[in-house]
């Protein structure tokens, strides 16, 4: 148990010590927020409005903000987990691996470290809310925080598994290109994913980011007050192979996903030594 805390603590100390990285990791989400929120916002809003045929008050930025926060969680989680590769290159991993800390606790500690870093970054995105004209009440916030941490855990375990499979930092860019970007684009984080071809739909259904984003939206946006057509247009009616998706279902999906990937990552740690 103490081993988990130690590994987690190390990641936290290093995160708060490295201000440049903290600020740098905001650049991407802010860029996306500007491009998609402000740039495409008008077009999206009129598109949706014309689709519904009413001029119901609909704020695209409000729709996209949970998506951008999820994206921050995903990118920070994955990038932080990749520090495992750095630990291997710089030798610190050996110090951990020869210690009596069990392999499962090493994986858990690393996962929690990355997840906490991502969580802090995600929460820091809330600073932007006043500038976007979005507000959040305390109850919503209290519901949101544990969900965000759980999502960060799921994404971190994914990053950890990828890191344990990669042999060098060279693979890093590849991971970003073939894994992280498609996961963001095919999750409904940036634009609604309604009326997609079947194979895209299939990927969307298996993409854990989809459920993270959907959970966040359901908590942050007052979904019940939107008309059925807007809900449909904005892709809020997710289905899982024909079954409508509930929030409880999403939570279980993400927890199961995390458990499975931690297990696989642990096996990788065991095999590597």
């Amino acid at each position, binding site marked *: 148990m103490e081993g988990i805390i130690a590994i987690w603590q190390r990641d936290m100390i290093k995160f708060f010590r490295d201000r440049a990285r903290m600020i740098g990791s905001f650049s991407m989400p802010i860029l996306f927020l500007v491009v998609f929120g402000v740039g495409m916002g008008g077009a999206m809003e009129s598109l949706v409005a014309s689709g519904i045929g009413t001029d119901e008050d609909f704020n695209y930025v409000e729709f996209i903000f949970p998506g951008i926060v999820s994206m921050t969680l995903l990118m920070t989680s994955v990038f932080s987990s990749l520090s495992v590769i750095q630990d291997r290159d710089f030798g610190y991993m050996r110090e951990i691996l020869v210690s009596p800390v*069990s392999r499962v606790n090493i994986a858990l500690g690393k996962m929690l470290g990355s997840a906490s870093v991502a969580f802090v970054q995600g929460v820091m995105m809330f600073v932007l809310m006043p500038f976007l004209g979005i507000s959040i009440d305390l109850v919503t916030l209290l519901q949101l925080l544990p969900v965000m941490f759980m999502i960060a855990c799921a994404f971190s375990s994914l990053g950890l598994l990828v890191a344990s499979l990669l042999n060098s930092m060279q693979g890093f860019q590849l991971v970003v290109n073939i894994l992280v970007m498609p996961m963001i684009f095919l999750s409904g984080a940036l634009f609604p994913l309604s009326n997609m071809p079947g194979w895209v739909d299939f990927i969307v259904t298996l993409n854990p980011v989809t459920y993270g984003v959907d959970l966040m939206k359901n908590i942050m946006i007052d979904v019940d007050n939107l008309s059925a057509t807007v809900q449909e247009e904005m892709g809020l009616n997710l289905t899982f192979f024909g079954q409508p998706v509930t929030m409880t279902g999403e939570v279980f999906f993400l927890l199961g996903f995390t458990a499975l990937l931690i297990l696989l990552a642990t096996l990788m740690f065991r095999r590597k030594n």
Partner: protein
Amino acid sequence: MIDVQGLQKSYKDFQAVNNSNFHVEEGEIFGFLGPNGAGKSTTINILSTMLQPTSGSVTINGYDVTKHQNRVRESIGIIFQQNTLDEKLTAKENLKLHCKFYGVPRSKRKARINEVLEIVDLTDSINLLVEKFSGGMQRRLEIARGLLHYPKVLFLDEPTVGLDPQTRAHVWEYILKLKENENITMFLTTHYLDEAEISDRIAIMDHGDIIAIDTPRNLKQQLGGDIVEIKTTDNEAAMKEIESDFDVVDLSLQDGFINCKVENSDAFVSSFIKTLQTPLTGLDIRKPTLNDVFLSFTGREIRD
């Protein structure tokens, strides 16, 4: 303390370690030498639970390295060839994390950290980031860290590689101090054969086999003895005297010196000085070095 029996490690088409047997006593400094690729690292990795052996049994502190990995891990400390400190953390943070990895009781941590820092003379640098440390300081900090959980066995894998001669000497000073004060068993590999002299016993490994295992002294004696160089006022007379009175392996005159090769120079010189009639003007004893030993066993220099 360390018991290795019938240890083998083979990869697909390559036998890294071949039926090795050896035993290391408690409190002993055990030198483990061999050219690159001899199977040293493989052996160390198996002893430190980082690698599974193909067959054979290894016990450390009474625990089997394959069955009781965590018990073994608690019993050993390792100073790696490669730096394994976190340079972005302070010395204190590095040591604290180590205490947590090894479950050092919370109440004892502070005292232990101060204690090990004292051993390696780094008390003043406790709150400094490790990246600000010099190479020698980092090494010393690693040694300190390896001692934090009071290991029974300390593995030192090339502990002085890449350090300047002065720092090297320093590091050995600390290591010897440890042996005297803490009675820790040490398993040591090094490329510097003069450094291996501090070992109580040495094993030489080549091509996956242990080809010699003995005290440095005995190993050197196996080479056929020491060379005593003698200069006298009358070398011819002295040579005759030596030939008739002493048991020497080889005797020759070279550049005004009499070269005697004897099995044991200590015994030879002490009696020789007492009995020699011809006045002595010069005496030099050259013992074979570990390098000579290494060369004779493996047929090559350690660095080849």
